[in-house]
């Protein structure tokens, strides 16, 4: 039985448990010797919870443990020279895995032929649609046979254990149902634990992000020194041919410069446009204009970034190249910093405008009336009263938009280019941290080479940078928020 069947079995028995638990409590209540401490549904749920949760825990533990035991069994059959070769060990184990998969397809007759060596295992497997890279070594065959055997045994053990645990818990919970059992409290306690677990998924995610990236990044820094990475000015991670020691140069600075330069142009578009739109909508526009314009601007935030990327690639990039860059002799590429920055800026307009709009609207009317009453014009009121009051919030909004700009991926992948340049000319191709992460992690991955691992060093740098911006933004908003009541 597969895990899905086991889950189905657990679910079925739990529902059955609910039914009989409920039935028993109703029967007990009808006897009427003692008043029941909870509603029938609570007794049902009590049995259900007791049946399902231990069984699921056992199933999960066994599923986690199984690969390790199987791995151990394979290692026992590998000859010493293979075991000694640390770098290719995982490859050797994967090969055995392939052979084991192939063995599942062959008929007993063919198996016999393979064992006595009449036909090669490889040709038999190929006939069944399992291609192998090389011929099967005798030790691989032995390891694969024992792997399949151990797997079958483990699967049987899991089936039996889980079924037993489910059944025993069901019986145990059923026997425990008595009029004095506080079933509701027990069930609610379990629910509360589940709720707490659900709320900690967010924390687990953060821990997962930090740990997974940190380990790979440390692995990378054991090959390339942090000083070379953070202070290097050349990005040239050659994908070295297998076996050669050449690893290329991993200078972070050109990527950081490209990221900041593009984000700068994005903010140059997004901040004025977003801020003035917010001011106009909250201070000048009639409610009718506002009710049309605000949702329209917010559509911009709902458009996927890949769409912006395509827009930049096919419309904005060629237009800037043909009408600005080439006539003025500034560059010849449709992929450039200006294109990426401009389109990213358009994407960020709603982030700036809707947050600022909320903050400006939150400034109390009395402040405006006071200023207007003293004879200030509307624009003077906005500039000298409303904006200073809303400033912390606006700064927070801008910082959040900046962190989006730094982490934005699809627009720059399509529109900024892949060449790592450090130049002041915004019409040249440049690349960003996110582009390089995508480049290094798509295609064939090898988690032992610095070319793949560098992506995690870039990733954790990006994570820390955006995290710092977010925390700063949230702190500014919290600390300097004007309290009007």
């Amino acid at each position: 039985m597969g895990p899905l069947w086991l889950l189905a079995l657990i679910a079925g028995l739990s529902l059955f448990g609910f039914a009989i638990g409920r039935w028993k409590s109703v029967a007990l209540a009808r006897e009427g010797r003692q008043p029941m401490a909870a509603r029938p549904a609570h007794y049902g749920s009590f049995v259900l919870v007791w049946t399902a949760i231990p069984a699921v825990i056992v199933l999960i533990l066994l599923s986690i443990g199984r690969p390790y035991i199987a791995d151990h069994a394979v290692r026992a059959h590998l000859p010493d020279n293979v075991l000694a070769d640390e770098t290719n060990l995982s490859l050797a184990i994967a090969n055995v895995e392939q052979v084991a998969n192939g063995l599942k397809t062959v008929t007993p007759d063919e198996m016999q032929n393979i064992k006595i060596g009449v036909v090669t295992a490889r040709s038999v497997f190929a006939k069944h649609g399992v291609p192998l890279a090389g011929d099967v070594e005798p030790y691989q065959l032995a390891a694969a046979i024992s792997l399949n055997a151990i797997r079958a045994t483990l699967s049987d053990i899991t089936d039996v254990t889980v079924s037993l645990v489910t059944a025993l818990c069901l019986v145990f919970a059923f026997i425990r149902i008595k009029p004095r059992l506080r079933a509701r409290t027990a069930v609610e306690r379990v629910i509360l634990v589940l709720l707490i677990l659900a709320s900690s998924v967010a924390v687990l995610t953060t821990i997962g992000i930090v740990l997974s990236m940190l380990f790979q990044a440390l692995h990378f820094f054991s090959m390339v020194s942090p000083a070379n990475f953070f202070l290097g000015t050349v990005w040239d991670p050659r994908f070295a041919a297998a076996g050669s020691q050449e690893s290329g140069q991993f200078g972070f600075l050109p990527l950081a410069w490209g990221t900041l330069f593009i984000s700068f142009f994005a903010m140059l578009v997004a901040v004025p446009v977003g801020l003035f739109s917010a001011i106009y909508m909250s201070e000048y526009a009639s409610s009718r204009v506002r009710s049309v314009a605000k949702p329209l601007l917010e559509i911009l935030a709902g458009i996927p970034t890949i769409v912006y990327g395509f827009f930049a690639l096919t419309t904005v990039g060629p237009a800037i190249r043909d009408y600005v860059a080439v006539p003025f002799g500034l560059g010849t590429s449709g992929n450039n910093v200006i294109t990426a920055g401009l389109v990213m800026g358009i994407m960020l307009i709603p982030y700036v405008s809707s947050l600022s709009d909320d903050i400006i609207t939150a400034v109390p009317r009395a402040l405006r009336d006071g200023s207007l009453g003293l004879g200030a014009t509307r624009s003077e009121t906005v500039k000298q009263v409303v904006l200073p009051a809303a400033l912390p919030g606006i700064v927070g909004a801008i910082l959040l938009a900046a962190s989006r700009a730094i982490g934005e991926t699809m627009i720059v992948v399509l529109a900024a280019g892949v060449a790592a340049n450090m130049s002041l000319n915004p019409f040249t191709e440049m690349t960003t941290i996110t582009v390089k992460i995508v480049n290094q992690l798509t295609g064939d991955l090898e988690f032992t080479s610095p070319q793949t691992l560098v992506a995690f060093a870039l990733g954790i740098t990006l994570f820390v940078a955006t995290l710092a911006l977010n925390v700063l933004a949230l702190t500014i908003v919290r600390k300097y928020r004007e309290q009007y009541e």
Partner: protein
Amino acid sequence: MTATLSHNTPEQALIVSHIDLGLQRRYRSERRFRAYGIAALTFGILCLVLLFSSIISRGYTAFEQTRITLKVDFDPAIVAPDGNRSAEAIMGGDAFRFDDLFSATVQKSLEISPDDEDGLYDALDLFSKGSSPMLRQMLAQDPALIGTTKDVEFYATGDVDSFVKGSIRADIPESQRNIKDKHIVLITKLKDSGALHLAFNTGLFTFGASTRPEVAGVGVAAIGSLYMMLVVLSLSLPLGVAGSIYLEEFAPKNRWTDLIEVNINNLAAVPSIVYGMLGLAVFINFAHLPRSASLVGGLVLTLTTLPTVIISTRAALKAVPPSIRDAGLGIGASKMQTVFHHVLPLAVPGILTGTIIGLAHALGETAPLLMIGMKAFVVDYPATPLDPATSLPTQIYMWATEPERAFIERTSAAIMVLLAFLLAMNSCAVLLRRMFERRW
């Protein structure tokens, strides 16, 4: 107060200006400031219009496709030389006999003389390379066709399609276009005879990835996206709601809950590509789940949408007035009963709205999916969430980097399909909010 300011007539302004010489300047700056606001708003909306019009103007033609109808004579001498007409015999044996069948068909329909080999090759250039396999499939499904003649609709190549729609123009020099003058003669001939025509491009919605634009579609990608959305919905909704219920209704105010709170706000702003790297490291590298599987994509997207769902659910729970809770507790319900029987049902519209918006975001997410190998050339429909799959946005990404004109058109069309889905989901959310919104 404000009314007098805005209703100032020029005469009044003139009188006042005797007293305050700066007033003109101040009014000018007021008008300027206002103009900046209008300009900014117009710019934003203009960008939106430009974005949509550029995509629609590029993409609307992809919903039609050039097809060429030819009369095929399923000659038994060509397709079944040994007389065996079973489906197996058709699918087995020499594939070239179907090329012969197709060549003979083209030769006959276009009245090309049997000696004119170059002319035949030029004519074959107009048809999709999938034409003869298509004939084979057709015969395998219905071997009774052998020996009969039938009108069959063939796909024209992407270049012919672009030419017929006018996006490859005849007036540029011959060396710069893929459609040569000799092809144009043939196309005109086919058009005049009525064989070549435009039809609705159903393949766009049903086919999978292909290197030939005429048979490339988003059907397979859409199924991948659908699987992922199901995974996201079935995980992020229960997890998000359960987590928010704890934080909003049960959690004591202490450092731990404070930490969770800050954490969730931060997670909402973490770049999505970072989630992709987490997925790569944890689900693929550590848990050994298959690459390119929609299950893994769904798991990663669940993590990206979870903060959105939690934040909106908490807002919805917070909007339920305390009197509801007091009433529940007052008549003897436990805290858990109050929350699940009274507070949660009242918060459902808000929760659903937030979830749909989160799902819409997840549907358009691309970068994390690239990390876990969803940028894959997938031709067949994935049968289960564990099969290799691709998604709408990654399909768009792969097409976007193809230089062919026919692919640009299809990319725009795929974007329109994606945007249509997003629009539908967001309208759903707005409708839900309008219908069930309650003011307390």
